[in-house]
C-alpha cells in the first residue's frame, strides 16, 4: 500500500517536472488530429451531431420519444456528447504507448506523459463541446422551447473533473494492456458498446426498472451523466448519495489506473 502511495507521488512529481513536455505533447496530439482534415476541429462536433440525429430518428420511429417531452432532445444531446468524450478518449489512449514505440524505446521521460497528454487533448476538445451544449441550452431557454434552468450549473466543474479522472484511469489501464495483449482493441470496442447501452445515454435513468436503478450507479458513468443533465437542464439530482458513490468509483478507478501504470511501465520496453 505504502509502495503504491510512493509510486503515486513519484508520478505526480514526474509530471510536474515535465510540464513543458506535457504541454507540447498535448499540442502535438491536437495538431496531428486536425492537421490533415479540411474541416479540422469541426469533425469532433459533427461526429456526435450525426449520432444524435440517428438516435433521435430511430428513437422516434421506435416510439421511445414520448410526445410532448420537450427535454428529450437536450437529454439526448448531453448524453451523446458527454459519452463521446469517454469513447474517444479510450480509443485514443489505447495506442498512446504502442503508437509512440520509437519514443518509449529510445528516450527517457515519464511514460505517463503519453496517455495523460491524450486524455488532456480530448478534454480540451470536450470543453469546446461543452460550450456548444451550453449555447444550445441557452437558445432553448431564450426561445422557451424547453423548460431549462441553470440552477445547478455549479455542478459542471465537478462532473467534468470526475469524468476526466475516469477517462484517464481507464486510459492508463487500457494502454498498458494493449502493450501486453494486442487484442485489447477488440475487447474495448465490444465493451464500450455494452457499456453504452448500460448507461443512460440515450434514455432516462427513470426508464430503467425501479429495482435496478440503484444498481445502475455502480456504473460511474451513470452518476456522471446524471450530473451533467442536472447541470445543463436544471433537473434536480434524485439521489445525491448514489451519485456520490458513482463519483467515488470514478476517482477510485483513476487512482488504481495511475498505480497500475506506474507499476507495469518498466516492462514496456521489453515487450516491443
Amino acid at each position, binding site marked *: 500500500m505504502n509502495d503504491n502511495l510512493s509510486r503515486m507521488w513519484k508520478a505526480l512529481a514526474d509530471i510536474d517536472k515535465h510540464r*513543458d513536455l506535457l504541454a*507540447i*505533447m498535448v499540442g*502535438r496530439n491536437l495538431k496531428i488530429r486536425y492537421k490533415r482534415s479540411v474541416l479540422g476541429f469541426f469533425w469532433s462536433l459533427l461526429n456526435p451531431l450525426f449520432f444524435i440525429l440517428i438516435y433521435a430518428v430511430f428513437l422516434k420511429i421506435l416510439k421511445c420519444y414520448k410526445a410532448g417531452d420537450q427535454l428529450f432532445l437536450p437529454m439526448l444531446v448531453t448524453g451523446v456528447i458527454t459519452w463521446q468524450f469517454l469513447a474517444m478518449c479510450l480509443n485514443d489512449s489505447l495506442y498512446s504507448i504502442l503508437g509512440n514505440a520509437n519514443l518509449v524505446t*529510445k528516450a*527517457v*521521460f515519464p511514460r505517463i506523459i503519453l496517455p495523460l497528454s491524450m486524455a488532456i487533448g480530448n478534454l480540451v476538445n470536450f470543453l469546446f463541446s461543452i460550450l456548444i451544449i451550453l449555447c444550445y441550452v441557452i437558445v432553448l431557454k431564450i426561445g422557451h422551447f424547453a423548460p431549462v434552468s441553470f440552477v445547478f450549473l455549479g455542478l459542471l466543474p465537478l462532473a467534468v473533473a470526475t469524468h476526466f479522472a475516469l477517462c484517464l484511469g481507464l486510459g492508463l489501464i487500457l494502454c498498458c494492456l494493449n502493450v*501486453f495483449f494486442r487484442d*485489447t482493441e477488440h475487447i474495448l470496442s465490444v465493451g464500450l458498446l455494452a457499456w453504452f447501452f448500460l448507461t443512460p445515454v440515450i434514455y432516462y435513468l427513470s426508464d430503467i426498472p425501479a429495482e435496478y436503478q440503484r444498481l445502475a450507479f455502480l456504473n460511474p458513468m451513470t452518476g456522471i451523466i446524471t450530473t451533467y443533465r442536472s447541470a445543463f437542464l436544471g433537473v434536480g439530482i434524485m439521489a445525491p448519495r448514489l451519485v456520490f458513490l458513482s463519483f467515488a468509483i470514478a476517482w477510485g478507478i483513476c487512482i488504481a489506473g495511475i498505480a497500475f501504470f506506474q507499476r507495469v511501465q518498466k516492462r514496456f520496453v521489453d515487450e516491443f
Partner: protein
Amino acid sequence: MDDSAIQVEHASKKFKLRHGGSRTLKAMVLDYVRHRDSAVNREFWALKDVCFEVKKGETLGIIGANGAGKSTLLALISGTMEPTVGSIRTSGSMSSLLELGAGFHPELTGRENVFLYGAIMGLSRKQMKERLEAIVEFSELSKWIDEPVKHYSSGMYIRLGFAVAVEVDPEILLIDEVLAVGDASFQRKCLDRMKDFKTRKKTMLIISHDLPTIMAVSDRILFLEQGCVHGIGTPSGMVEEYHEFVRRKQALGAKRVWGTQEAVIEGVELSNGAGVRTDMFKSGETLMAKICYKTTRPIERPVFGFAISDLNGKVVYGNNTQIEKVIVPRIENAGEMILRIEKMSAAQGSYMLSFSIHSEDHLTNYCRLENTLEIKVTSDAQFEGCYMPCVWRQEAGRP
C-alpha cells in the same frame, strides 16, 4: 570526490523471444487452461555480467560485431531499459536520445520537433528558444525548419537530430552509430563537435563500426563479444584484437570437411615435443599431430598431407608424405599416422590447421579437414611469416 560518470556493475539483460509475433489475451487464456506457456519460446541473454566504469571527461568507444549487445548496453545506461541483473549508476545529465531523429513526428515541422526533443530532454521552452538558432545553423536547415519533417531527406533528419542532441549540451553524451550517416562535410562537423565536447571535459559513449574514427576519438575502447566484455583498453590495442577476432571468425567460417569417405580422419591430437597435449606452441618448438583414421576398404599408397594457414586463409606452410618421399604402402581398418614438425617456426599469432588423405595422383580426395584446428603460436622474435634461418654479414665499405 567521486569522479566516475558511469558505473556498470555485473549488468546482465535477458530477453524473452516470442514466436508468432505479439501476445494476445486469447493465447494467454489458452495457455492458462493448458498449463503451459506457448508465447515464450526461449530466453536470450543479450548482455552477460558486464562490468566497467567510465570516468568523468572520458570518451569510451564501444565496438563489437552485430548482435554483440552494444545498443542494449547503451539502452541500459540511458535508462530506457533496466538490467535483469546488476546495477548501473550514472551521475550528471545525459542525452537520453539513443537514436538521432527517433521521436521526431513526421507531421510536425522541424521547429516543433526541436521543442519536443528539448522537452523530452527536460529543457524548458525558454532554454530551447535560446538554442534554436544554433541548432538551425549547425544543421544547415534554415530554409526547411518550418516544413514538416516528413518532407526531409534522411540526411536532413539526422543533421537536425545531431544538432539538437549536442546543443542540449548534456554532461554525458550517448551516440549510437551516427558517424555512418551524413555526407563527408557533415561528418567532419560532427567530429569537430565531439572533439569540442572532449576538450570541455564531457563524458561520451560512442558506438561505431567505423574503426578509424572511433580510434581517433576514444580514450579507451570496450570490445563486446556476444554480450560479454571481451576486453577494455587502449584504442589501438582493442581495435587490433577486434581485427584478430574478425579474422578468426572468417577463418572458422572456412572450416570444411569433405571427401569420398573411403578413409575418414576421426580426430587429430596435437601435442608438443614433450608429448603433452596442447594447442599453444612456442615458435621453433616441436609440433606433433596424431591423425586417427578409419577406412571402409583397404587403400593402396595413400598420401597424407597437412597445411598451416594464417587467419586470413593464406597457407603459411603445406607439405605431404609424397613430397617427403615417404611411402605409405596401404591402410586398412583403423590406424594412426604421426606427423612431427621438428621446428615449427611460424611467427606469433593464431593459425588454422588442415589435414588430408588423398590418392597418389591427387584425383581422389578420401578425406579433407580444412581449417578445423586452431593453434596459437607465441614467439620472442618479431619476424614475420615463417622463420627461415638466416645470416647477416656486413661487407667491408667500398672506397
